[in-house]
């Protein structure tokens, strides 16, 4: 066994062990929720465990001659190349795990551009009005698409239940706080601005929302507006988009950028630029702790 071959065995095992432990740590610590949607989280955990097993396998089970039997031993990299490769694999991962803050900072959010129009939301399906009954009194086709907000935000405990023809029934599913205010997400109001049946659930009603404070992007001559932002993730954080709702306050708020705030106010939907836009007229804005799921899936 040459030095290069021996080193390769231990470096490979070490790299696999570090990667495997990092992935399993992210899963079992719950940090994975900030990086991946639930659909991908289990896969990452399994990959982590498999990598740990492979690390043991590579170290104790695979003989160095196993790979040589087909001439691959001729391609064992030089020691310097092996060390550089291991450094590329390990250093960024460890730095990322140590430094990564479980969320984007303000500059990255601004660079991604806010979503304040439901049509710009990943996975949005245009609303279809329910079909009218046919002559025999039956619904002609499956009536309407389910309220996307319900599907899109189900995992984050969002407000809006599936839209049905029975508004009364809807109301019973809308979660409220102890004061009777509707607990809403930014994404709910974005959808409500587009869909009449959902809008009636919110319009001119008191809502309670949690999000991150960002300075208003414009149209703020008195300095009494800000944007309440939540990140909406499709598959992983890299594709997440900031979903923003404008908050109108009585006076300019002195809150640090990106800090979490709870807003209580009345949901309105004025026409801005030819389309209905959600604006919450706040009666109260106060700092709060981040929610359990900082992302909306």
């Amino acid at each position, binding site marked *: 066994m040459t030095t290069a071959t021996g080193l390769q065995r231990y470096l*490979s095992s070490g*790299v*696999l062990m570090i*990667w495997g432990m990092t*992935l399993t740590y*992210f899963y079992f610590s719950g940090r*994975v929720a900030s*990086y991946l949607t639930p659909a*991908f989280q289990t896969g*990452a955990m*399994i*990959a982590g465990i*498999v*990598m740990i097993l*492979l690390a043991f396998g*590579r170290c104790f*089970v*695979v003989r160095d001659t*196993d*790979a040589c*039997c*087909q*001439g*691959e031993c*001729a*391609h064992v990299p030089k020691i310097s190349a092996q060390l550089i*490769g291991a450094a*590329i*694999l390990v250093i960024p991962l460890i730095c*990322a*795990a140590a*430094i*990564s*803050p*479980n*969320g*984007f*900072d*303000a*500059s*990255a959010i*601004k*660079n*991604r*551009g806010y*979503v304040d129009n439901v*049509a*710009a939301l*990943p*996975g*949005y*399906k245009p609303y*279809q009005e329910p079909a009218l009954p046919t002559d025999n009194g039956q619904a002609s086709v499956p009536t309407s698409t389910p309220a996307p907000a319900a599907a899109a935000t189900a995992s984050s405990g969002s407000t809006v239940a599936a839209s049905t023809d029975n508004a009364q029934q809807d109301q019973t599913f809308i979660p409220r706080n102890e004061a009777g205010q509707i607990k809403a997400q930014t994404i709910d109001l974005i959808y409500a601005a587009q869909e009449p049946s959902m809008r009636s659930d919110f319009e001119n009603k008191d809502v309670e929302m949690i999000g991150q404070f960002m300075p208003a*992007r414009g149209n703020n001559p008195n300095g009494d507006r800000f944007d309440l932002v939540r990140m909406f993730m*499709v*598959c*992983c*954080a*890299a*594709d997440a988009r900031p979903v923003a709702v404008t908050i109108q306050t009585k006076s300019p708020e002195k809150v640090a950028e990106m800090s979490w705030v709870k807003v209580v106010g009345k949901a309105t939907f004025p026409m801005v630029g030819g389309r209905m836009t959600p604006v919450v007229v706040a009666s109260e804005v106060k700092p709060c702790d981040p929610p359990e799921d900082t992302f909306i899936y």
Partner: protein
Amino acid sequence: MGDSWFTFSLPSFFFSFLSVVQEGVPFLLLGSLMSGLIDQFLPSRTMLRLLPRNPFMGICAGAAMGLVFPMCECGIVPVIRRLINKGLPLSNAIAYMLAAPIVNPLVIISTLAAFRGQHGVEFTIMRMGIGFLVAVLAAMAVQKMPVSAVLREGVIAPDGGVRDSAPQGSIPSRLRAALGISVSDFLDVLVFFVIGVAISSTFNTAVNQKFIDALASNVWLATFSMMGVAGILSLCSTSDAFIAATFIALPASAKLAFLIFGPMMDLKLVFIYSAVFKKRFVLGLAIGLFILVGLICVRMNITQL
């Protein structure tokens, strides 16, 4: 700060980097495990017997193989590396490599879902069809090239031929060898994956998207700039349709180009491909695909979708 075209933030970079790594590594690992098993348990004779003898039909079969053996773009490179070693013609492997991340059941479902209500069926059919066509055309071009101009040294056996006609040895020893090969393939490709993800994460977090959106003012500009965006963002082919569907202001040809070019060539893939192919070939493939996909999508003139 938000109006600058480039604002780098190390924490956001690492955040994006970790998210793509955690999403992509399971697929990369799956591909590597398959590559080890293919190497040790797939007799090359069997594989070659199943392939059509006609080279063109062989390429078409390769491009359609993703329907049966679906792979995403991250995991496919270790697999085709082993298939080439098993004697799969290079052109067939290229067709499979380029088409499988698009022409596969998961991507069909996700594209249909993402574009539901926005001509989803038409979009999905065109994505599959053009993806298949481009993969076949690229593979036919590769067919005329010498292997030495395409593959890196050491990727195929020293004699340049098929390594074995039938795997030999006991099952435990073959499993051990498969494990060793899987680990070796995984780490080889992982290095390039990490470099590619690091670069795409830089663009993903530091470049102001509105400066990219501004390029999309006409069909030609929109189509080619969206391919550039796909190359930079390096999204997974199973999820990119959900992103493309949000570009509502863009012409359909631009969205289609985004969905076809991205899974075939992006920043992370440039590095992953470099584990198997020569740099010059990868560069040529990137330019060729960029032009071919762009021209086809623009010429389709599907502005009505």
